[in-house]
Structures are given as structure tokens and as C-alpha cells.
């Protein structure tokens, strides 16, 4: 379908002859993801999805205690310092963003009165400014009003490198914020920004109060007492917080949504392990909700039989994939292993790479290891659905792999291992220590051996593998191996910063102390060009097409072999309703709407 046809369909949605849902389904059928379809409609002037009808309470509170279990306890409650999801989740109980991301990646207003769009004048046509109107009458927990000054302050606070925030990058792209009136702010960007929802939305958009943090901007940020005693706008107010252990909170009687929240008390308990957390919710019912259950699906299924809880799954963005090294990790060039100037002795041969892709048995890996934790995929970029390519497919085919290698002249030696021009097909395949990954390694190795490729497996403890230590050769940034496998994910329903990891200027090397994100050392001019073009492309249809093409380049050239597109898995009590897990936001993005059925 070309661009003109697409625009025709969008017009039909606008005039009402085609429903929004039909349109989305059609686009998904065409290989575009649902959020992309949604953004297409949004950009073309169709209203955002309406909040779905749910149970409507007639009064606030009265629901007793909500008990939640995080097997890694939040260690701090300042959203701008939240290094991991656990901290962002803990902060989300008390702090709220202007808008949250629903399961499809759409924006849902929280502290904003409405979502800015081109139609309502909120988004400038040149993509260089966005105007947010704030919800009136919102109060901080201490009774002070939430105003435009707070929004401006959050930007100043986060964008100041001396404060030491982890949200720095989301906010420093903003050139200026003008306060138009007490409840309207205008964000101006230095250059056109197609995806403007990174600051102030979702996990990185939580608002902290100016009047309590003003004195602690910059170098003194650590001393703020409110880092541990949050004062936000959220549905619950802090009672007690013990870093790494527990959070206790009580209902906010002045919450800005009528008749919410439902529960009178809120508890979060941290620590332990995922399996027993699942047990406490699904089997014994001691707790109402448990987060991030990376537990073998068989175990979860067994617990669910006759239990008191259920597993809740939301497609997320994580992609477990194998990276194929383009550089030579075994010879030093100018004193550097895996130098971008070198080429891999055999992995640069398209036949070998093609064969490798055919040797990954995604169906078995999915069924035997991941189950409901994910789905087998051919794409690196799977979501939002408008960015997912339909031009790719995956296959496990030992015969074809053998055939391809035979044709390319890789002959089996007496030991069954293929060789050509004195080079043996022997690969080192590394990953982090994790039961699922070691099982995946074994499945891949078994198939590769049958195809005449010798595979040596290596597993590195996670804290080393995922570190950035320039002196340690075992990190995934160094990638001193032929293949490596891990999961990477997106923070936002937009792939711009996610897809940067294959651009040529991001190649990880000695000169940047192995801190850059392109670990495969792959370089491709078309890819670079597409990435740069998308950065400024304001037409969502063209932009999506760019990303689909980028993904296809990765797959066709077998720069990576995607395996499993992972889901977020949590567990809730059978009686707990309204949780509506979103893969794009915290587990708590709908916390004010959670309730328990009698």
C-alpha cells in the first residue's frame, strides 16, 4: 500500500465511513503496529482513543489495604534519580506525569487537561513546539496548587547536569519553556521533534513540586529530604519508606480524580525472589499484586491451577536477540580487539550469516523456555505495531542451512566442522548467566553442530556482562566474541533512540572506552541516512516506513537474529480489577483506578 492509499483510508476514518478499530486492524494486517496506526490517525486529526468504560465508584476509599510485592525493592523515590523500573514504579505511587502511555502506546492525560495535537493547536506544524494545558485544581499532597511553574521547574531540575538526574537526556532537548499562563506551558525545541512525548510523559515525566525541591537543584540534590518523603499529586500519600524494603502509603483525600482511589492504605514490600513473589499472590493470596515475574511459564501455570491469582501479561518492547559480530575479535588491529577497522574472518560472509539465522529454532525456544513470556519473532523492531515490518519471516531449516553453506564452499572436515581457505567455522557465543539464556544457547548449539559449525558457549555473570567497565573484556559493550545474546528494550513507544544502536557513529571502540551503543560494529550508509531522516521527519507515515526499512536492513543482512519479543508479566489477585498492564509504562500507570471486587 502506498502513501496515497493510506491517506485515503485515513480520510475515510475522518468522515466516519470506516471505524477507528477497523482502520487499526487493517494497518496491523499490513504489517504496521497498532500504536503506529493510532499515531497516523492522531497526526491526521482524528481524536485519540477514548478511555474505556470501567467500573465507576460512587465514593473515594473504603477498599481496605492494597498489598503489592516487588522482588527488588525501590531504593529511592525521586523519579529523576530512578535508575531502574523498581524506582520509577515506587515513585509512580506518589508522582504523576502530564500523560501516561496506555497498552497501545497512546497518550492518556493525567495531569494534563488534554493531549496536545496538531488539530487542537497544541503541536506546532513545524514540530518545534508543543503546548500543554494543565488540569486545573490539582493539589500537591501538602495542599499547594500544581501549576505551570512546577512544569518549568522540572525541566530546569532534570536538565541541569549538576543535579545528576537519569532523565537528563529526555529534557535537555528542550530549548525553552514559556509559561503562557498559570496552567499552560509551551515547550520549544531546538530542532523539529517528531516524538515530543519523551519529556513530561510516562516513566520519565513524573512531576516533582517546585516549592520543595527548589533549594535542592544542582549539586545539593542529594540532600533533599523529599527524596525519601515524596510530596506528589498521586492517589496515595507517603507514610513510611525504607529503601530497598518497603513503602507504606495512605489515601490522598484530595486526589484530583473524583471518587478515586479505591484503597485506604497501600503497601509495597520489596526483596526476595520472583518465584516466591508469584507464590504469595497466586497461591497463598497474601498479596494482591506482584511485579515482573520472570519465572518459567510452567511453574506459573502450575500455581494458577486452583490458585487465588492470575498472571497478567502485556506485550512490551524487549527483544531477546543474537548479535553477530562484524569485526574480528581474535586479532588486534592497532592494539584493539574487535576494532571497527577489522572485518570478521567468516561472519561477514552472507552465506554463513544466512545459515546462522536458519539455525535458531525460535519455535522450540518459545515453547520450551519462554511460553507466555514472549513470542517468537523475525523482527528486531516489533512495537508499536506501526513500526513492525511485515516483510520478514523466520524459519528453522537445518537442510537449507547445510545447503547454503555447501554452496558457499564451506566443506566439512574430518571432524565434521566446516572450513574454507583454512578458516574453520568455530564461533564463541556469549551471554549473561540466566537459566533461560543458557537453555537457548544449548538449543542453538545443537542445531549449529548438526550444520557443521562448532559453537563454544560462554556465560558471564550479569553484573559484569551488563557493566560499562572499560577495563573488563567480558562486557557486552566490548563484545570480544563472535555471537552474543541479551534483551534490549525501548522506554517509549517510539524507536528513535532505540534504533540508534546500529548507526555507524555509535560504534563501540577503544577510543570511546567501549561506551557506545553499536556493539555489532555494523555500518551501513542507508541505515545511517534513514535514522537521520527519521529524526526530523514529521510525517508519521513516512517515518514509520523509515523504521520498517531500518529493521529490514538489520534482518536481511543478519546483523542480529531476533528470537523472542518479550512480554511484561505480573500477577494479580483474582479479585483485583482495573490494573490494565501497559508495556509502555509503569505497572502503576492506572493505580488510581485499581479496585477490588467483593
Amino acid at each position, binding site marked *: 500500500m502506498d502513501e496515497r492509499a493510506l491517506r485515503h483510508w485515513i480520510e475515510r476514518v475522518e468522515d466516519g465511513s470506516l471505524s477507528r478499530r477497523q482502520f487499526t486492524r487493517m494497518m496491523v494486517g499490513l504489517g504496521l503496529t497498532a500504536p503506529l496506526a493510532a499515531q497516523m490517525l492522531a497526526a491526521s486529526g482524528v481524536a485519540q482513543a477514548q478511555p474505556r468504560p470501567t467500573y465507576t465508584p460512587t465514593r473515594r476509599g473504603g477498599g481496605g489495604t492494597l498489598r503489592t510485592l516487588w522482588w527488588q525493592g525501590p531504593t*529511592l523515590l525521586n523519579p529523576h534519580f530512578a535508575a531502574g523500573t523498581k524506582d520509577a514504579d515506587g515513585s509512580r505511587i506518589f508522582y504523576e506525569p502530564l500523560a501516561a502511555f496506555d497498552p497501545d502506546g497512546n497518550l492518556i492525560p493525567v495531569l494534563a487537561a488534554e493531549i496536545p495535537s496538531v488539530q487542537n493547536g497544541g503541536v506546532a506544524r513545524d514540530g518545534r513546539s508543543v503546548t500543554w494545558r494543565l488540569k486545573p485544581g490539582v493539589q500537591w499532597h501538602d495542599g499547594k496548587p500544581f501549576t505551570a511553574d512546577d512544569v518549568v521547574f522540572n525541566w530546569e531540575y532534570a536538565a541541569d547536569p549538576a543535579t545528576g538526574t537519569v532523565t537528563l537526556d529526555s529534557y535537555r532537548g528542550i530549548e525553552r519553556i514559556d509559561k503562557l499562563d498559570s496552567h499552560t506551558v509551551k515547550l520549544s525545541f531546538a530542532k523539529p521533534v517528531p516524538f515530543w512525548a519523551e519529556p513530561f510523559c510516562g516513566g520519565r515525566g513524573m512531576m516533582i513540586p517546585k516549592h520543595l525541591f527548589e533549594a535542592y537543584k544542582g549539586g545539593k540534590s542529594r540532600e533533599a529530604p523529599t527524596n525519601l518523603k515524596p510530596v506528589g499529586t498521586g492517589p496515595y500519600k507517603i507514610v513510611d519508606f525504607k529503601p*530497598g*524494603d518497603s513503602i507504606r502509603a495512605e489515601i490522598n483525600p484530595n486526589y484530583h480524580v473524583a471518587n478515586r482511589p479505591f484503597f485506604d492504605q497501600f*503497601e509495597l514490600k520489596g526483596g526476595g525472589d520472583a518465584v516466591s513473589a508469584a507464590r504469595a499472590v497466586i497461591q497463598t493470596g497474601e498479596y494482591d499484586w506482584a511485579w515482573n515475574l520472570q519465572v518459567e511459564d510452567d511453574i506459573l501455570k502450575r500455581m494458577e491451577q486452583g490458585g487465588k491469582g492470575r498472571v497478567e501479561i502485556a506485550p512490551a518492547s524487549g527483544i531477546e536477540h543474537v548479535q553477530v559480530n562484524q569485526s574480528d575479535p581474535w586479532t588486534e588491529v592497532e592494539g584493539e580487539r574487535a576494532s571497527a577497522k577489522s572485518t570478521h574472518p567468516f561472519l561477514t560472509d552472507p552465506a554463513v550469516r544466512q545459515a546462522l539465522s536458519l539455525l535458531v529454532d525460535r519455535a522450540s525456544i518459545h515453547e520450551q523456555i519462554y511460553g507466555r513470556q514472549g513470542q517468537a519473532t523475525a523482527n528486531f523492531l516489533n512495537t508499536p505495531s506501526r513500526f513492525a515490518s511485515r516483510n520478514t519471516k523466520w524459519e528453522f531449516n537445518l537442510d537449507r542451512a547445510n545447503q547454503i553453506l555447501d554452496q558457499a564452499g564451506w566443506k566439512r572436515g574430518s571432524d565434521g566442522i566446516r572450513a574454507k581457505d583454512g578458516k574453520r567455522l568455530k564461533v564463541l557465543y556469549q551471554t549473561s548467566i540466566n537459566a533461560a539464556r543458557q537453555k537457548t544457547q544449548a538449543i542453538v548449539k545443537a542445531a549449529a553442530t548438526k550444520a557443521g559449525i562448532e559453537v563454544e558457549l560462554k556465560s558471564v555473570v550479569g*553484573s559484569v556482562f551488563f*557493566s560499562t567497565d572499560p577495563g573488563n573484556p567480558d562486557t557486552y559493550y566490548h563484545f570480544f566474541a563472535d555471537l552474543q545474546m541479551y534483551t534490549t528494550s525501548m522506554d517509549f513507544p517510539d524507536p528513535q533512540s532505540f534504533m540508534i544502536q546500529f548507526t555507524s557513529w555509535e560504534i563501540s571502540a577503544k577510543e570511546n572506552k567501549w561506551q557506545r551503543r553499536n556493539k555489532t560494529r555494523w555500518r551501513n550508509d542507508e541505515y545511517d541516512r534513514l535514522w537521520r531522516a527519521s529524526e526530523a521527519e514529521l510525517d508519521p507515515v513516512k517515518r514509520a516506513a523509515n523504521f520498517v526499512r531500518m529493521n529490514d536492513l538489520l534482518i536481511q543482512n543478519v546483523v542480529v537474529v531476533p528470537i523472542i519479543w518479550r512480554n511484561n508479566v505480573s500477577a494479580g489477585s483474582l479479585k483485583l480489577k482495573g490494573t490494565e498492564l501497559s508495556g509502555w509504562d509503569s505497572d502503576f500507570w492506572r493505580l488510581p483506578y485499581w479496585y477490588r471486587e467483593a
Partner: protein
Amino acid sequence: MRTYLFRRLLTVLPVLFGISLVLFTVLALAPGDPFEELATNPNVPPEVRANLRAQFGLDDPVAVRYVRWLVAMLKGNWGFSFVSRVDVDQLILQRLPTTLFVLGSAQVLALLIALPVGIYSAVRPYSFFDQLATTLAFIGFSLPTFFTGLLFILLFSIYLDWLPFIYRSDISATGLRWVWENLKQGIMPITVLGLFQGASLTRFVRSSVLEVVRLDYINTARAKGLSEKATIVKHVVRNALIPVVTLLALQVPLVFTGAVVTEQIFRVPGIGSLLIASILANDTPVIMAVTFVYACLVVIFNLIADLTYGWLDPRISYR
């Protein structure tokens, strides 16, 4: 005595200095990064991490960092956690009561089991009771706590549904109910730890009583017509317990630093679980503080044990 104490205290200082130096160097050389979670996130550019590293002084040479730590420590400043950005002493104090309650009770439980059982076994060696106690003791200390812990959870929480297996430090009830809730959730971790320590302690008490009970002065006591009870309690046990007391003194530091494995299983928010979480997160200031406090306690309680020897046994003198 005073010169002895003075001499001992003088040697303690270089020992502590050496310990801190070794600990710090090992931690500094160990691989890992406190900002690992940021590193795995492709949406966080390396500059953000570099900025944080520079802010927390992680890019300075190890020697500079050590001197900075040492000077701060001497001034009573324990530094702050990289992960929670909270002062370390605050973190430790928050967790100390839980650890003291759980491990202290476990220690008491161990004693309550070990003393009567050990003494009775020794007084009637190779009797049926002794054989039974020995067998149980062997089973007790050969089963690791993580195994008994899981067994307890399966039995008492999942099948019988009697006890909670998640320990909460923030029980909101008051009065008697608060005491009861705390006891209820403490039963399993305390029993697991108490039985494990009690098992080895029983063997220890038994052998030390056995040694004393055969001595001549015990026979003399019996010969002069003292009742069996008085002989055992006043003459045997008092002397036999000298080595047991030292052993206990050396275990006190453990009570302060927690049980890493058991705390993890039952989610007891004690110092042990703080230590393991900090190690996993490469949170050097916290690891440093907990291990260093442990080292100090070991050194101090060694000294105390040496001094109590003299008090319990007047034949020992200090020069």
C-alpha cells in the same frame, strides 16, 4: 591488666586499617558498575552515566578514593549509597532492629535447645537420648538454612497456611496485636536459624561437659555426698561453659550483621539482605560500611572474649 588492654587496643588500630585497605581495594578492583541498570538501557546515552560517575567521584584513582573514604570515616561520615543516595548510617540503622530481633531470638533459641540437650547427653553418654540427640544434631547442621527455610515455607505457609512467609517491618497494628503479628512472622526465620545454630552448639556443649564430668573433683563432689543436681549445675556446668561463652562472644558480631541467606528467603529486611542487595548493585559505600562494621565487631568481641576468660577462670592472668 591495664597495660594488657592498652597493648591490645594499640594492635587493633593497624589491624582495622589493614582490613579497610584490603576491603576497599578488592571492592574497587571488582568488576561491575553501580549504574548497571542505566547501562543496559539503550535509551540512556553514555553521557548521562559518565556525568553520574564523575559526580560520585568514581572516575578518580583508587588511592584517592580510599583516602577520601578514610578521612570521611574518621570524621564519622560513612558516605552515601550510590543506589538510594541516602546516608549509609541511616540505611544501616533502619535495618538494625529487625536483624537484632530475628538473629538475637535465634541465638537465644539455639541456647535454650543446646544447653539442656547438650548437658543431659553428656551426663548420660551413649544412652538412647544421647543417640537421638546426636542424630538430630547431625541432621540439623547438615541441612543448610536455605533448604530448611524452603521446606518450612512449603509446609507451614503453602500447605497448612498457618504462617506468613513474607516478613514485614512495617506492621501497622498496635499493642498486643503488633507483638503477635511480629512473633507470627518471626517464627519461621527464627526457628530455621535457631535450629541450625542450636545443632552445632549442642555438640559443642556435650563435648565440653563430657570433658569436665570425668575429672577427679567431680568424683570428689559426688563422694562427699552432694546431690546429682548440685554437682552438675554448680560444678560441672560452670566450668564446662567457659569455652561455650567464648564461642558465643565470637558469634555476637553475626547477630549484628545478619544472616544473608535466611533473610533473603523470608524477605527479612535486615542487614544481611542490605548487604546482598548492595553487592548485587555494586553499591560500594554500603558494602564497605557493612563489612567494615563486621570486621570491627569481630575484633572487639575477640578482645572481650579474651577478657572474659580471665574473669571466668582466675588462673588466667594478663601480662
